[in-house]
């Protein structure tokens, strides 16, 4: 117990002293997670929308496959991407291994199914009457799709936030593809794992606090935005 309280107090002091190492790690984490969430959203939201809105053969199988991919362990994704980006592999010449780009690729694979499946859920929850109302008022397929998208926007934003929450807290991909290089690919979670290995809990606790505060802040902004739009 003493260890925990001592570590927490020291961690808070470390954060309040604006330690450059802590903020460099936080910046790398935010940058990598932000970019991967952006790309995953750009692909996952339209994918989820098309699957939910369209009717085609194999739709159910596709949804089952996406749901299955939700359970993919980060180390499996790390291994999979590693087999493509390691020096002697097909993309080896691009020199991606142990770079932020490699982490981004792995993280996109991790959260693309999250964004897509949660978008499918958000679209599927929209009342059928919205589609029918838009159609009877003369809307074409694209305009009707826009109505559905607009009505589902909070669910879609929630999907993106959930994906960001997943990706900022993952450790396997960042460790395997980033290599935990200080100042370059060291993220909050890989730094925490390293500090734990060293038996140093202060930096790990400081990063843990920042991670929780960030998560709380993102949710706060989302709820504030949601509340304002609905009033």
């Amino acid at each position, binding site marked *: 117990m003493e260890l925990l309280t001592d570590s927490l107090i020291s961690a808070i002091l470390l954060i309040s002293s604006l330690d450059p190492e802590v903020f460099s790690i936080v910046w790398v984490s935010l940058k990598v997670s932000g970019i991967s969430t952006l790309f995953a959203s750009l692909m996952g939201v339209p994918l989820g929308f098309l699957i939910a809105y369209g009717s085609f053969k194999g739709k159910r199988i596709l949804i089952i496959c996406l749901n299955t991919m939700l359970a993919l362990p980060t180390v499996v994704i790390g291994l999979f991407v590693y087999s493509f980006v390691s020096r002697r592999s097909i993309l080896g010449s691009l020199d991606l291994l142990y770079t932020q780009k490699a982490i981004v690729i792995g993280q996109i694979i991790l959260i693309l199914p999250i964004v897509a499946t949660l978008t499918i859920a958000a679209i599927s929850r929209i009342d059928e009457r919205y589609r*029918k*109302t838009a159609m009877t*008022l*003369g809307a*074409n397929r694209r305009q009707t799709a826009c109505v559905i998208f607009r009505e589902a926007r909070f669910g879609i934003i929630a999907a993106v936030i959930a994906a960001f929450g997943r990706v900022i807290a993952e450790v396997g991909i960042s460790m395997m593809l980033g290599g935990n290089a200080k100042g370059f690919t060291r993220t909050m979670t890989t730094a925490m794992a390293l500090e734990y290995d060293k038996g140093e809990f202060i930096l790990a606790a400081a990063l843990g606090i920042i991670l929780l505060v960030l998560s709380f802040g993102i949710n706060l902004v989302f709820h504030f935005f949601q509340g304002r739009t609905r009033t």
Partner: protein
Amino acid sequence: MLYVLSKITRKYGSRTVLDISLMEIEKGKIYALLGPNGAGKTTLLNILGFLEVPATGDILYRSKTVNFSESSLQNLRKEVVMIAQHPILFTGTVYKNVEFGLKIRHISQKKREIIIEETLELVGMSNFVQAQAHRLSGGETQRVALARALAVSPEVLLCDEPTSNLDVENQAAVINTLKQINEQRKITIMFTTHYMYQVSSLAHHTFSLDYGKLVTPQAESFNH
């Protein structure tokens, strides 16, 4: 004739929910569509509103055979508007809701403002222009849905139980509006109802459906 439906059937799975050998609808009249729950009234309105395609049969609309391709139906939908039994309003203001159909028709901003003002006044909702749609009561929602439909100046208005779940005051307001728009704009109206007093006070003709079949093959007429 505005509509002529011949040998129309509609099936859900193996169940035939609509089987109409002949139905004629005249322009500028008000029709009441009667029948017990599950008789096929809503399905018939969906077909008349070009929202559903019949399994078999032909529809003549304005003396032209309806082509059931999506692009053709979409054009026809610009003339026929249906108001559901429990209408739903889009998220946003009343103004945005009424504006929706007008924007689709590429009507200028200035003209849109005039039309929205006029139609909201017609249904007695002028004071709610900037109100959030999801905060309206059932009666107010019904009236805004009516304004949204009327704003696009339809040839035909199809109303699925337009006064169900409304109090007496709102029922009277909706009925009066329907009567007024029929008289002033010559809009053809078909509405479903379970209330006989509405049929006698509003409809020029009535159709009755039972198990998907027309009980009165030719429209029964009322003289007001």
